[in-house]
Each structure stands twice: as C-alpha cells, then as structure tokens.
C-alpha cells in the first residue's frame, strides 16, 4: 500500500514542489492551504503521514499539530514539520506541539523521502 500523505503549506510553490516530489516517489498526496483547511481535509483522507508548514494564515502549524493530536485516530500519525529554520528551540517547540520530525526548507526531495520512510516505514504502511 502506498503511503497517503497530507501536505499543508500556504505557499503554492512549496505545495507544487511537495506534490511533485511525493508523486514522483509514488506517494498519494493531498494538499491543503493552511491549518484550518488541513483539518477539513484530514477526515477525508486518513493520511499515513502529515507534512505541515508553520507560518500559515488562519491556523498555524503549531495549532494544526495540536488539533490533529487531539483526535484519537491521529494520536500517533507521524507529522513532519516543514521549517525554514533549524534552530533548536524551533524544533523543541514543534516537538512539544506533537511533531514527529522536521524537514528544513528548502527541502531536498531525497532527504524528504528518506525522512518519510524514517517515520512511516520503508514504503509499506500498516
């Protein structure tokens, strides 16, 4: 079974690139434009992994992760944070919100795919 991925980012460019990189690696990708939108989409697609930006309108990444973790079904769903900064306190904050890992923007597709495998297994989901 291919991995189902929800990618949330307010930048169309980043969404386009995520979508391209993920679909090329054979993932099924769903996109959302901000945290609120991500939560709307979440229920429809039951993602195996969630990738989210932090700075977004309406509901930011921290709020989004917290809201996802509050739902029982997604208590353990891996969530990767897309961030432009790799400052330790940012990582700590993302982790505190419930993030599984992080990808520093601009992301390297190979590294992104490796990170996905690291949190969700080698291309096979449960």
């Amino acid at each position, binding site marked *: 079974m*291919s991995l189902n991925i929800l990618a949330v980012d307010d*930048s169309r460019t980043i969404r386009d690139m995520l979508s391209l990189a993920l679909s090329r*690696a*054979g993932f099924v990708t769903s*996109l959302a434009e901000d945290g609120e939108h991500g939560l709307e*989409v979440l229920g429809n697609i039951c993602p195996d992994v969630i990738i989210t930006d932090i700075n977004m309108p309406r509901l930011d990444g921290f709020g989004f992760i917290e809201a996802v973790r509050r739902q029982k079904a997604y208590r353990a769903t891996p969530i990767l944070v897309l961030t432009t900064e790799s400052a330790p306190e940012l990582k700590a904050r993302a982790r505190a919100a419930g993030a599984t890992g992080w990808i520093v923007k*601009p992301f390297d597709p190979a590294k992104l*795919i490796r990170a996905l*495998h690291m949190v969700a297994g080698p291309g096979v989901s449960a």
Partner: protein
Amino acid sequence: MTTPDPMAEIRASFFIECDELLEALQDGLVQIDSGATDDETVNVCFRAVHSIKGGAGAFGLDELVRFAHRYETVLDEVRSHRLEPTRDAVLLFMRAADILSDIVRNCRDGTTTDPDAVEPTLRELEALTAGVDEEEEITDFQPTGLSLDLGLTDVTAGPAADPVFEITFRPERELFQSGNEPLFLLSALSALGSLETTCDTSALPPLEELDAESAGLAWTLRLTTNRSRSDIEEVFEFVDGLCVLEIVEAAPASESTLPPLPGLADLSGATESADTEAVEGDSTDTVASRLTLTMPDAQDGPDRSDGVAAASGPRVPVLSADPSEPKDGSTATAPRPSAQGTVTRATVRVDLERIERLVNLVGELVINQAMLSQSVAEAGLPANSPVAQGLEEFMQLTRDIQDSVMMIRAQPVKSLFQRMARIVRESSASIGKRVRLVTDGEATEVDKTVIERLADPLTHMIRNAVDHGLEDAETREAAGKPPEGCVQLSAAHRSGRVIIEVSDDGGGIDRKKVRAIAEEKGLVPPGQPLSDSDIDALLFLPGFSTARKVSNLSGRGVGMDVVRKAIQDLGGRVSITSTPGKGTSFSISLPLTLAILDGMVVEAAEETLVVPLGSIVETLMVRNEDMQAVGPDTQVLRIRDSFVPLMDLGVELGFREPLETYSGSVVLLITLEDGTRSAMIVDAIHEQRQVVIKGLQDSYGHIPGIAAATILGDGQVALILDPLDLMTNATGRTRAGEPRLTLAG
C-alpha cells in the same frame, strides 16, 4: 499543452505567487501605515516575505533568500512586539518591499540586482535588529537546489573493509508519543548498509502490563556501512533527546563473522519473532536474539513503492487545491491527483492567447449579428415579427457575452496603483519632499492591455504632481497647509468608461506663468484672449515645462504632450482642472477595452471609413464664405475667430482629386494631441457606433493614415483612420489646378 519540465512550470508559478505575495505585503504595509497594528496585519506581511524566501531557497535564488531573510527577521521582531512599527520603520519596510520586488523580478528575468541598490536598505534593516544575533541562523539556512533525481540512497551493501558502528538505542516513552516508530528507524538504518540487530527486552514489563506505546525495548546494533557517522545520526535526528543513543565506531568486521542473511523478511514480522523469543527468555538476564536486517538493494526502494502504488491505486480521492498541479507523464505509475474538494479561492490560469481568440470570436459574433440585423431590416420584416423579436434577444445576448468576455481580461487597477505608490515614494525622496499617496477605487477593473499601457503616462503624471504640483514644505506651511503633501489617485467606472484621476493638494497652476512661458516660446500670440481652461490646456503642448529648476525628475524632456498622446493612443482623453492654492487634478477617461472603438462612420470618395470619435471636436457644414485660399492649392476654413487648415479625406487617401467646390460639404473638426486642429472634409456622416478593431499590421503592414480596420454591418471592411498620422502627412490639397475666384471669395 504539457510543459516538458514540471520544475520550470513550478518556477513560473512561483514568480506569479511572488507577485501575489508582494501585493499582499504592500497592502499590509499600507494598512500598518494607516494605523492598523493588529497582529494579523503584521503576520500577513511576515508570511508574505517568509513564503518568498521559502520558494526562493528551493530554486537556489541566494540573492533573494538573503534579502528576504533579513527582511523577515525584522518583521518577526515587529510581530513579536519587540520592535515598534514607527512611521520611519514602515517607510523603510515599504522601500524594502520595493527592493524585494526588484530582486524577484531580476531573479525571474535572470538578471542581477545592483548591490548598491540593495545594500543600504539591507543595512538599515540590519540596524533595526541590531540586538538580534542572527548570523548563526543565516549560515544555518543552507539553500539546497531542488533536484528531483529520486534515486534515493545510492547504497550498495558495504564491502568487507567498511567500518562498523556499534549503536545502542533505547527509546523513551516520549519517542512513541511523538509519532516515531523505532522499527522504521531501524529499517532506515539498515538501508545504509548491513545491520545486525540485538534486541534487549530486559526492561519490558510483563506481557499483561504491556502498553504498545510504552518504552522498554532497547537495541544494540552493529552497522557495517561505507556511510559517514553523520548519515547515521541523521536517521536518529527526529528522536534526538527522546532516546538513549550511543554511536561508537568499532573495528571493521570480517565478512565471516556475520551470520547468514535471513532474506528479505518482512521487517515487522522479523522483529515480532525476536520479541517472542525474548519473552520466552533465555537463561541470562540479557536476553538476546539475533537477526540481521538487510534492505533489498536500496535502489529498489522507490521502484517498489511505485509498484505498490500502481497495484493498489489511490486509497482515497486526492485533494488538489491547485490547478497548476504539475503534469508529468513520467509518473504514470503514481496515482494522478485529481482536483476536488474545498478550495478557498478557485482560479484558473489561462493562456492569454486563448482569451484573445475568444475576444476575436465574440467580435465576429457582434459583426455577424449586425449583418443579420441589417438583412432583417432590408427584408422589411415588421418589428413585432418573431424573427425581429428573436433577433432583439440575440442582440442582447451578444452584448452580454461581449461584456463577459471583456471581463475576463479585466484586472483591478490595484497592481498599477501599487506601482504608483512606489513612484511617489521614490520621486518624493529624491527631491526631499514628504508626500503621502491616497488611493481610491483600487478594485476598479480595466482591460489588462489598457493597464499595461497606462503605466508610463501615469508614472509621468505622478512624478509631475510630486515635482511640480506640490509645493515644498515651507511654502505649504506658510499657506497654512500640512507640510506633507498629498497626491490622490482614484479610479472609477462612469458611463461605460474608466475615469482615472491624479490630483494634488498643491498650489495649483500658476496661469500667469504658464501664459508667459507659452508666449515666450511662441506657442500663443501675445495678448490673445484665453480662458483659464485654455491656459491650462497649454500644458499639453509639446515641450512645455514650467519647472524653474530642472530636477532629475522632470529634466528628461518628457512633457505632458507625451502623456496626452499615450492616453489618446488608448482611445482616451485627458483633461485638467486647477484651483489656485488648492491643487491640480488630471482626469483620464478611458474605454474599457482596446478591442472596441467608439467611431464615427463616414463616407469619402464612395468609401466608408471610421474616424475615432475621440479626435473629433465638432462637425460643421462648409460655407463658401468661410474658406480662404492659402498658396496655390490649399485652403483654410474659418471657424469662429480662428483659421483651420482644410483637407479632403478622399484626396489625402489618394482616392480622388480635389473637388470643384466644397460648398455644402461636411467637415469634421479634428484636434490632435499637440492642440493643432484640422478640418477634414467628408462626403457624408453615417452614424456613430462602436466598432471591433481588426489589426492590419499582421495581414498587410502599415498603411499611411490608417490605424486599423473593422467590419461593418454589411460585411464590408472599413478602414479606421489614424488622424495624427493622416494629418502629419497631409498635403492639404483642396483645389484642383488654378485657384478660382469664386472659392477665394
């Protein structure tokens, strides 16, 4: 219509996104400038710059990243209330936004930005965040060019000489809570080389107390790999601090010490058996079961998931909020995302050419419908007949379709106004005036082509207002005005046209001075009676400039005559009103589209022609006593107190020789942008109507005196005149052979 390179498409869409983000940034800054200090407004600005930086990094646009990063840092300070957005700071932000948009444009066009234009602002931004230690972060932010070679880890099982790492890994409870899964980490690790796993279950609680997310397992791992230590650390990056981890480089193991590989066993299955063995227990307290995990040739990785994807298909419908979804045939095995679901703002990007085609087709429809109407009228069908009534509805529909199609090309003037805001900032700064720009009606929509061609004349008018219109601060204060000058820019729709106004609250036109200069330059005869509006109109004469000191804004030889010409080329008119001491206002009236022209259909030498309505001042009937011969074959027409050269349209177009007499002929009084007038003789005036403009350049080339063509209701092609071209090349021949006494009258 598929673009071969999806990255090129994303790059193009990135620059479109940048434009949108820059617009949002500008908007936000204007709001902050007018007192909005709420968090969301600041946040919008921050996010705009942040998103530009993010995309720029992906394309390796280092210059853009560097500036955006610094800018973003300052905005972040404002966002976190550590920095007060003072007026000066906001003005700096606006300048920075201007530079940011320059860098974006240069990156798009592949040109470099002049560092001298960037550095001062960059330093000013740095000065605002003097307290924030940031250097580390900058170096931390390493833009990586995005390559889509997903060959993934190019790992082959390490040869015997590869180093061996002894890794101790004991997950803590928090590791599970963060959504991490040790098994996946181990499998990622095994992708790096040959992995030997020893599971330590000694810390496990009894089975009945076992909690899936509780800690207790620990692993001792031996990894034989040619990869570096940092690659191993990368695997554990996400669980750093959530586990006990020790990585020790051991002596290379010889091949023979490794137990035989158990094949490509299902990873979780394999560990399960390890667990079972562990629970059953050995005699020692360190229960160990051994298994070796080896990934299949790592290069199979992506292929394998591809295959799975193809076999199982998409499990759920995929939501794609963006129509610019890259299309790529090479990912045929991957399920294609389909557009569906909640989209906050649905727009499509359409090739302009397709719209042009639609506009043309609708033009055909309008022409066809006019031809049909004419046939119906000629057939003598009564107005209440079903055919005539059906046609009436058809006409209404045609008009609606035409309006709708024109709306597709319509764009709000906002982007244009934002450019003007920048012009105000730059031009006022360069001459040391404080000027505020107030805009109104930014949402007014105008044809995209009109907007593009309006930028230059409007820029000039804005510069003019800042440079000449507004007084300096001392003069203003002496006149009881606020020292900061105000330029207003507004747009509105009025009776099927767009009205754009540029006004200032300056001293108004100094009519005495204007008159003196005009007389001095020989533009008007001294002492000629002139109304206020006549004097104001002198500003539009070529080469007219009232600036005492030539500043670097106006000293470029571009006068209001050029502005007027540009506006007239757009089928528009420009007028001026001024109140001494209160200010000056320029009003531009434009058609909604360039595809349609308001024209006067006339006849000359048995040909039907269209004269742009905008150039016609009035129509007259020629009387013999009003004509005066000048030279051997030209005449002038007396209109009230002035004499206007007379020309015969049929003669000028080479369709006929001058007539014996023009008595009783119809004359169109034409005014050019430079104020010169001419009386154009036509044989008849048919009607005033809108015509669809058809270019001739592509099918034939330039014809002197002719701007374009159109197709009339009878299906015939009619030429549209270019009055300026016609008059500048006019011979003025209105007399054949010897002058006649009767005409000389």
